[in-house]
């Protein structure tokens, strides 16, 4: 089935009892059992929930995977993946992943005896060089947040297979509509479903997708045993959202390309990071492994004051964390999403204090461009 068809139908057969076309919200914590040991496969809300199962089947299909395992946040999903390793194991991770992932790994998981190497995975040889005897996982984010560096997923997954490592890709920035890491040979895909998957800025959620039976078994076990499960209502809201994912992503993509071109042509920004621009160092790779370039743009305005003024004076863009909503958001990674990364680390990757990140929404692009023009004019 095509993507848009799966988005609307996968995991969402009409309710067998009533024929309800839209999946009901199974808002119950427990299930009545007929007698000891006899039930319909549903025992307790943390373990089983029909609305959640619909969501998991739906997103698994969109990511071309067999299994989906949903969580109450993207970070809860990332944390669940740490259940694939144990003390003494080593993990290689992209050096500019989402700040919350960095914080989880460095400030929490390290204390449990896990070792991390932060490498620039846009160069595949850096992954190979970082492999140790005890390396188990390679954790990738492409494009990265907020620098929009790409990692060659086919190449990276080949290295992982050769070295018996499990490859994980945080695909939040692209959404399954624009990139499917499983089809490029990766083992696990992770999403913060809060972002493009849900798209309406009204749910926090996360999900893991895989084709591997044993990984699925382990993560499913953790989902129940650790318990960071999403509520049935949140699952239902995300199911509402995936139906429009294709049309939303088309528009995010189109708007972002136009905005990036405007920023480039107007020379308002000192440097623009967007894989859709021909001068992005990995533009060719982007064209190869992605079906579009996404809705995220970062731009360095050179001066902290310029960035501050832009953030303060925009009227349509909302200053806020998160991304992937229908409404355009603007943020300051250095003090917001990536504040937990030390300044020297930030500067090394180009994440300066004058860098601004745009999550381009689906408003009329003329209004978005005018908003940025006006906001910068009020500074100059």
């Amino acid at each position, binding site marked *: 089935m095509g993507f848009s068809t799966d988005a609307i139908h996968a995991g969402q057969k009409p309710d067998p009892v009533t024929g309800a076309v839209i999946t009901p919200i199974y*808002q119950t914590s427990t299930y*009545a059992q007929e007698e000891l040991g006899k039930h319909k496969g549903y025992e307790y809300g943390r373990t089983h929930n029909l609305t959640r199962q619909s969501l998991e089947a739906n997103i698994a299909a969109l990511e071309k995977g067999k299994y989906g395992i949903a969580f109450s946040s993207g970070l809860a999903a990332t944390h669940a993946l740490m259940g694939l390793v144990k003390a003494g194991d080593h993990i290689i991770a992209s050096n500019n992943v989402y700040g919350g992932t960095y914080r989880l790994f460095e400030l929490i998981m390290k204390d449990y005896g896990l070792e991390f190497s932060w490498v620039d995975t846009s160069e595949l040889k850096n992954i190979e060089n970082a492999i140790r005897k005890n390396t188990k996982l390679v954790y990738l984010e492409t494009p990265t947040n907020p620098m929009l560096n790409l990692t060659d997923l086919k190449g990276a997954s080949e290295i992982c297979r050769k070295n018996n490592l499990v490859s994980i890709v945080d695909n939040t920035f692209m959404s399954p509509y624009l990139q499917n890491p499983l089809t490029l040979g990766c083992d696990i895909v992770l999403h913060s479903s809060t972002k493009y998957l849900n798209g309406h800025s009204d749910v926090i959620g996360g999900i893991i997708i895989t084709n591997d039976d044993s990984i699925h078994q382990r993560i499913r076990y953790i989902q129940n045993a650790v318990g960071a499960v999403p509520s049935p209502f949140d699952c239902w809201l995300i199911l509402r959202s995936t139906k429009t994912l294709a049309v939303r992503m088309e528009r995010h993509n189109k708007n972002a390309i136009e905005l990036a071109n405007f920023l480039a042509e107007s020379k308002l920004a000192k440097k623009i990071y967007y894989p859709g621009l021909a001068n992005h160092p990995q533009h060719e790779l982007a064209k190869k492994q992605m079906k579009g370039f996404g809705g995220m743009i970062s731009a360095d305005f050179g001066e902290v004051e310029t960035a501050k003024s832009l953030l303060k004076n925009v009227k349509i863009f909302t200053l806020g964390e998160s991304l992937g909503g229908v409404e355009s958001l603007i943020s300051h990674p250095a003090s917001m999403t990536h504040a937990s990364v030390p300044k020297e680390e930030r500067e090394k990757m180009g994440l300066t204090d004058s860098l601004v990140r745009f999550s381009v929404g689906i408003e009329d692009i003329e209004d978005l461009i005018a908003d940025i023009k006006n906001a910068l004019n009020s500074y100059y």
Partner: protein
Amino acid sequence: MNTQNKNNNTVDDTKYSMETHLIYGKNVTKKWDYSHHVLPPISSSIIYRLDSVERGAEGFIEFANSPITGEDPMPIYIYDRLGEPNKDILEENLAYTERGEMAVTFATGMGAISALMGILTKSGDEIIAHHTLYGCTYSLFTSWYPRYNIKVNLVDLTDSKNILTVLSEKTKVVYFETPSNPNLDIIDIVSLREIVDKINEQRPEADKIKIVVDNTFATPFCQRPIELGANFSIDSLTKGLGGFGTDMGGVVIGKMKYRDMLLLFRKDFGAVLNNKSAWNVITYGLPTLSIRIQKQIQSAQKIAEYLNNQNKVEFVNYPGLSNYKYYETAKKQMIDFNGNFSPGSLIYFVLKGKNAIESKENAKKFMNYAAKNAYTMTLAVSLGHTRTLIEHPASMTHSMVPIDKLSEYKIDPGGIRLAAGLENVDDIISDLDKCLNIV
């Protein structure tokens, strides 16, 4: 109700109290087999897949056609406006709670009132109603019904015999609230039933006068009008039955033979209850009804007694005060499921003043001060909420009543309506004390 075992879809209602029934409802229902989910799922689809054109046709034939299908079939769902599992489950439970044969829900209390009056009257008919009514019911009766040539006679029904003064051959409905909104008049349902029965003796079946009671102020916890002789009971689910102030809704309860007409009216006029709102009443509203209303009654009684002793207060209307004009009638008909006197959660009181104008000014001062300074009282319309609500009927809920009619309908220009919430009652009284001090 049938008496069958739990697995077989009904419960023995002689063995259990209503408090328990409010939690379980019918427990297992044919309307939607969710029997392994302890709570019903929230239905969230506007349409239902049909297996075949024939099944679709069958569904349309079954809809609002009880004589063919008999009672309580497993419905063929088609489209939310016609029917949907959450509303059906709620309706079964509400009918049970109000001691009627059936219930049909609507988008709001006004949706329920206009639907019931819509099926009971037609052009040329007359309605007799108590002269003190909720403002929007008054507005429905006096602004809209004249356009349809339906005449509404407003009289004082606290004396049942008064219906005889406006009775005509065209009279089809006697309509009232008890306690009435906002001033808590109590109308004797049993006595009205006797009079109406005598009139009905002379009439053919189709022309028999129906008694309709808006039971919103009492809720079925305090009063079941159908048990007392009313033909229909109406509730705004927005109030005590919903209980949390999150959702609008209304319901008509009565005999099974009216269900089809009400469903057809709802289908064609479209005031359909939202399924998520229905789910809230099933899940939160009904199961907590008895503990909420019990607590509100306890608080209202104390508040009424407190107000009754304040020299700045002219008078207090509360059915639980032994010096209240209608105390004896209230004691007779406002009783909970276990037979205890349950005078409700609403209080109406008037502040003193040299004249009506000064009394109104004092009331405004009191309420404006409360709006700004009282932690436990919120100036807002509605009632039956978790929060104690106060309001000024003359300028808010009853602003549709013309000024020159206010005194005729016993709505004082300075009257204050208080709906007790679930706060600690001492806190409410201490806030009231502060507010009275500045008057």
